[in-house]
């Protein structure tokens, strides 16, 4: 784009949209005009207040028999603000918030800028006071929203509806921006594999060339025209330059990502999942979940949005699988469109139904025709799909042809959003994104079975419901809040997940006992605005090599460290930090294995002390031996001493009351037998 064009384009956009945006700010900055208007039109103001479209709707009462979150929790009433909001945490230390980079903000943010005022007056905006309060913060919340995270080495990749930002996290407390890559199209979910970065695009403004200009609008039809053409079928507007699907970038040069492929799909890509086949060293696969409209056949050949009985090749009721040859990523293409929802007996493509009943305004008990997100667990050859009306389990041993093994629905579930496995694969945590993440759904009057996690047992490839977990603290009515993305924290001996709840903040949940999940740590900050629901909060919160990173939709990037509490000891935190991975794409879940180091043994001891599964004197004796071995750097005598504990620990493991304690004792014994440095 030439400079002249850039300026012209900016003016164009400003005059149609942005200019108006700042009227609200001007209002704040020119109190005299505001006051005079007020005086002149007090009645109208009063009426406006009653009909203020920006005021949040009060929460309706709790349905009978339901309970809500705790309104007395200290998180319930925090001071609002963009960057000065009240913050509170337990068991988490907030290291820093990095603000969203400037290229991911609107063109000009300075209402006093003469250019803006000039534009406004040219547009004939005579009375800025007519603009409602809050207008300036409501426009374009989503267009620049941060989305999901991926990690590789010392780099963090933060997706955004407008592109990707890449950070250097060598020193997490001093995280620094490396690259801002502009490439709009939403949601911008990212994955990384070696030298490749993948990115989801679904919105109609996405362009193959990463351009920000979108596509020119046609003139609105006049009312007369509308009537005349009422019976005529609408003519689609195919755009060959439009891109909806999965982009693939070469990130060999981290400061110069190059687009190597752009694989188009009919519904675009709302999310995607990197699938690595352990048997296939030459390719990786991408499962594409599309949730929005099917585009026209004229734009992308073969796309049909018809019902399955009308068109067996409909782009509904399927996912898309892209095969990416690692040696030639430019040849990536869709290789299959698995019909995951087929009824195996009748062959009907729409074989799944949701029994959900709870959603007031988010309910979708329709035939499930899409997945929102899929988490693969290649170590087990399984995937868990959160597919609008259902939670499903897939066999992915042949990654190109996943097969459905089980499907569940839940009467309290509105929209099956995402899934994750426990490390041993015996539990699955699903989330319900009731209201799509745009609404306040954690108010004291919102039932805590709605918009919550649902925990299932997984045994013999069958899912069985166990319990719900929802953010225990009530949130305000201007805070969008519902269950969203999280990852496991690799504390040995426990199942712990850190999870983002939008403006509900970050909650760390222990689900070792799948029937009784409990919160063990949290972070929250106040709403962005006290009067207007401004979309924000943490999209995803993931543990990566010792720290927790949370993608804040509106504000930027949050970085945390765990701190010890009664619910989590320093040894357990240190043991989690022994797990170091080269890459992290949370939806491509990896089996965690812990080194046989003494710090891991100490974590088990802390847990056995907490659960009282081992007598105090024995715990003390093992701890003393460990301490001695640590100071001698595992000399033979100390090794022998450690080994001497193993047989009795294994024996106790056999009689432990809980299976969790039994496994801890067993693992502890194994470490003491062969401790590594």
């Amino acid at each position, binding site marked *: 784009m030439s400079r002249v064009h850039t300026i012209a*384009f900016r003016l164009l*956009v400003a005059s*149609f949209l942005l200019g*108006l945006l700042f*009227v609200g700010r001007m209002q704040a900055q020119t109190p005299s005009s505001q006051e005079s208007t007020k005086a002149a039109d007090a009645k109208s103001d009063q009426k406006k207040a009653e009909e203020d*479209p920006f005021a949040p709707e009060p929460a309706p009462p709790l349905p009978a028999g339901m309970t809500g979150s705790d309104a007395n929790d200290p998180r319930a009433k925090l001071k609002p603000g963009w960057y000065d909001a009240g913050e509170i945490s337990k068991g988490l230390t907030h290291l820093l918030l990095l603000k969203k*980079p*400037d*290229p991911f*903000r*609107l063109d000009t943010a300075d209402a006093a800028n003469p250019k803006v005022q000039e534009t406004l007056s040219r547009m004939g905006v005579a009375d800025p006071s007519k603009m*409602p309060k*809050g207008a300036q913060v*409501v*426009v374009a919340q*989503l*267009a*620049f929203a941060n989305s999901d995270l991926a990690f590789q*080495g*010392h780099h963090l990749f933060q997706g955004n509806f407008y592109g990707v930002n890449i950070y*250097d996290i*060598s020193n997490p407390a001093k995280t*620094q921006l490396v*690259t801002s*890559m*502009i490439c709009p199209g*939403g949601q911008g979910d990212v994955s990384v594999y070696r030298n490749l970065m993948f990115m989801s695009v679904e*919105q*109609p403004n996405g362009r193959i060339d990463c351009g*920000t200009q*979108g*596509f*020119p*609008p*046609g*003139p*609105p039809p006049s009312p007369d025209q509308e009537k005349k053409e009422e019976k005529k079928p*609408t*003519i*689609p*507007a195919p755009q060959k330059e439009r891109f909806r699907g999965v982009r693939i970038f070469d990130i060999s040069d981290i400061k110069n990502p*190059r*687009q190597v492929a*752009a694989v188009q799909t009919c519904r675009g890509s709302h999310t995607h999942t990197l699938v*690595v086949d352990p048997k296939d060293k030459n390719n990786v696969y991408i499962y594409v979940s599309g949730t929005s*409209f099917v585009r026209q056949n004229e734009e992308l050949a073969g796309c049909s949005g018809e019902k399955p009985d009308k068109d067996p090749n409909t782009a509904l009721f399927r996912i898309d699988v892209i095969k990416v040859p690692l040696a030639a990523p*430019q040849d990536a293409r869709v290789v299959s469109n698995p019909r995951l929802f087929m009824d195996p007996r009748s062959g009907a493509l729409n074989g799944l139904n949701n029994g959900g009943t709870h959603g007031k*305004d988010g*309910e*979708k*008990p*329709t035939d499930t025709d899409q997945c929102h997100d899929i988490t693969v667990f290649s170590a087990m050859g399984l995937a868990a799909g959160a597919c*609008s009306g259902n939670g499903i389990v897939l066999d992915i041993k042949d990654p190109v042809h996943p097969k459905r093994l089980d499907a569940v629905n839940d009467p309290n579930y509105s929209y099956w959003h995402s899934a994750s496995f426990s490390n041993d694969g015996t539990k699955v945590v699903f989330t319900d994104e009731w209201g*799509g993440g*745009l609404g306040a759904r954690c108010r004291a009057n919102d039932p805590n079975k709605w918009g919550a996690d649902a925990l299932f047992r997984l045994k013999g490839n069958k899912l069985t419901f166990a319990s719900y977990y929802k953010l225990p603290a009530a949130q305000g009515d201007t805070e969008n809040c519902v269950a969203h993305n999280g990852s496991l924290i690799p504390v040995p001996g426990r199942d712990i997940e850190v999870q983002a709840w939008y403006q509900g903040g970050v909650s760390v949940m222990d689900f070792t006992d799948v029937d009784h999940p409990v919160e063990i740590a949290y972070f929250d900050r106040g709403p962005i605005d006290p009067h207007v629901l401004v979309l924000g909060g943490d999209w995803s919160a993931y543990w990566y090599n010792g720290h927790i990173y949370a993608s804040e939709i509106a504000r930027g990037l949050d970085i945390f460290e765990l701190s010890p509490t009664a619910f989590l000891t320093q040894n357990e935190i240190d043991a989690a930090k022994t797990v*170091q*991975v*080269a*890459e992290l794409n949370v939806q491509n879940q*990896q089996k965690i294995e812990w080194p046989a180091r003494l710090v891991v043994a100490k974590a088990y001891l802390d847990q056995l002390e907490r659960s009282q599964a081992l007598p105090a004197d024995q715990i003390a004796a093992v701890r003393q031996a460990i301490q001695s071995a640590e100071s001698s750097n595992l000399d033979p005598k100390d090794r022998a001493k450690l080994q001497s504990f193993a047989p009795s620990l294994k024996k106790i493991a056999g009689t432990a009351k809980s299976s969790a304690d039994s496994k801890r004792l067993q693992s502890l014994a194994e470490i003491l037998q062969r401790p590594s440095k």
Partner: protein
Amino acid sequence: VFNYLRHLRPLYVRRTREIRGVFTFASCSSVLAAASTFATLFSVPVCAQQTESGAPVVVQPGAPGKPTRTLPTTTRGTLPPASPADVQFMQGMIMHHAQAVEMTALIESHTQNKGVTSLGARISRSQSDEIRFMKRWLASRGQPTAMPDMPDMKMAHGDMSHGSMPLMPGMLTPEQMEALRNAKGHEFDRLFLTGMIQHHGGALTMVKDLFDTAGAGQDAELFDFTTEVDSGQRAEIRIMQSMLEKKSLGDKR
């Protein structure tokens, strides 16, 4: 542990941190040459990293196979063009939703059916909520919440309903509304469900028409909203169809 653990540089982070401590004041270009062999060995990544972190770049890739351009760091975000069709869609959908709310308001005095009552409460609640969203969307863009070519005088026709206003797709005609108002009990249930199915079907048409319009639907919020409307109304249509088919009219609900 991980399949690709071989690509891991697990000690890299720790090492650079230590080295950083030593060479905090070393400048990459000059001091390194004079540094000891040991230091030089390790300082290359340090240097690279400082450069990497020191000056963030703004880039915009091209189409596949095309080069990536570096943009000035002063680059700011721009939005895709607003489409007049987006504004018309929102204005029209407000009117469309308003009729649904008006229809559900009849339920209390016209039927005892639990299924219809419960469904109606949900529809009323979700459509009112969405009306608020749409008004907010329009107001924040400085747009009127009603279509400019629908003067108030048209409201003078009869009651507060839609009089002779041009109807959005699927909206009930004044005659249909009148029939609904005059029905009671089972007849009301039937007319309500068939009417609301017709009404919701119109919303799906409106969404489809929107995305069939050049340049429309590029606004991120409108895009997400329409996706929600589409899947939400499809769901309710199916519920209502099954209520009609079962003729239980939701007694079980």
